[in-house]
């Protein structure tokens, strides 16, 4: 009840004026550009996450080096750090007063950077356990049959990791679509340029345009719920076919 009722209120509010009013609210130029931007930066973020998350998981599982324990612990930091602090830390280093002489503040690059920060653990944490359990004999067998490193990776390791990688990406994408705290400071929230959907919703609430806020919220809700259901269904499917 505690979860369902508030969501019902949002959906009811967005449907108040009928389907055409809902459509009008979602298709105003500002709303469309915010939604497009959100999907775009989220896709960019998860693509980078997919590569670097897997690399990090690989290094944490297969590599040995001093200080590895600390690095392992650090991976969880973005989950523990308040999102607003995440945004501020990135601004301190890569913002207008940073030491590098360039600034990503108020740019789309800045938004992607903020999203990369908060979603770092998803792919790493999804891939790590699978990699730990991966049978190394398969790789050795392939190598002894003359497969090069590249072939082993492409034909043996990647197919085994793929489900976990995609699950991590799904969760990260859902998180990106709704992220607010990390993005709000760094993006500058310029309509049509750097305003993502969650910031757009916030602005609409502030200016008392609750219907538009509710309508865009429903779009976000639908996307992220579908994604999470997809990830859960994929996990169930896999459990059934492997168990």
């Amino acid at each position, binding site marked *: 009840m505690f979860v369902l009722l508030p969501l019902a209120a949002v959906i009811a509010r967005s449907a108040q004026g009928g389907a055409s009013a809902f459509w009008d609210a979602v298709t105003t130029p500002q709303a469309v550009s915010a939604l497009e931007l959100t999907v775009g930066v989220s896709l960019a973020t998860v693509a980078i996450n997919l590569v670097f998350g897997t690399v990090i998981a690989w290094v944490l599982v297969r590599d040995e080096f001093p200080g590895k324990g600390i690095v392992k612990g650090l991976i969880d930091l973005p989950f523990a750090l308040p999102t607003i602090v995440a945004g501020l830390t990135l601004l301190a280093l890569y913002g207008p007063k940073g030491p590098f002489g360039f600034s990503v503040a108020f740019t789309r690059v800045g938004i992607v950077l903020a999203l990369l920060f908060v979603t770092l653990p998803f792919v790493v944490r999804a891939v790590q356990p699978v990699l730990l359990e991966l049978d190394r004999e398969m790789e050795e067998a392939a190598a002894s049959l003359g497969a090069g490193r590249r072939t082993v990776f492409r034909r043996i390791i990647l197919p085994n990791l793929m489900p976990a990688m995609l699950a991590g990406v799904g969760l990260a994408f859902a998180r990106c679509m709704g992220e607010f705290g990390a993005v709000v400071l760094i993006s500058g929230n310029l309509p049509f340029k750097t305003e993502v959907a969650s910031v757009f919703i916030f602005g609409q609430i502030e200016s008392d345009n609750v219907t538009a806020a509710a309508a865009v919220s429903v779009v976000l*809700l639908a996307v992220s719920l579908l994604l999470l259901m997809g990830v859960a269904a994929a996990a169930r499917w896999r459990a059934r076919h492997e168990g």
Partner: protein
Amino acid sequence: MRASRRLRAVALAYLALLLVLPVGMVFYRTFEHGVAAAWAAVTTPDAIHAFWLTLLMVAVAVPANTVFGIGCALVLVRQRFPGKALLNSLVDVPFAVSPVVVGLALVLLYGRAGWFGTWLADHGIQVIFAPLGMILATIFISLPFVVREVVPVLREVGSEQEEAASTLGASPWQAFWRVTLPSIRWGVAYGVILTTARALGEFGAVSVVSGKLAGQTETLPIHVEQAFQNFDLAGAYSASVVLAALALLTVLSMNLIKREEVTR
């Protein structure tokens, strides 16, 4: 061998640029004018009020979600009933929903024009733009952690020991306290830590319902944002360091618990 070293360098450089250096920079900026200046910036009346209000959020949301979380996990693992799959996916909804949407939902329910708005106004209860609404937002956002951590542990320990306890004459209550709770304690602890971290740092949902009145409805994360927007960088950085220190503490205790679980 060289390839693996190159991978390691890539991974570590990525983490340094994205995580370590930015967080380090905030610490540096906070203390570059000395500890006294940082202390002064973080002990303004507004900052102190924000700190206590944040602790209040944690003090209400964490126990509420712990009790609910254990109960909900027990129901999900031990009982079969129609609609169980629905409940199972409902629990995850707060993870999937944007915090801003959560805030909007609460405004639509409890705000002046909301579903319960008139009733609440008649009874003189203010939820939106007041701590009560912020607490509701915090509970909503941090709802799934304990459930999600306890469910797999419960599934693993099974119900045999409980059944043994009840054949030996233990009441359900006794069985819970003496058998079930001790066996799931690490799962609960892990969930509580995650809940605490989230409750401390929640910004989006709380800022929608808070109205952001300095010294009244500002939590520490909101204080960081407001200080930054008002060009009070010292205040923003020093409050961030307090939150970052709490986050580091969280990560540390998470790792300790993991180790405890492994060595057990």
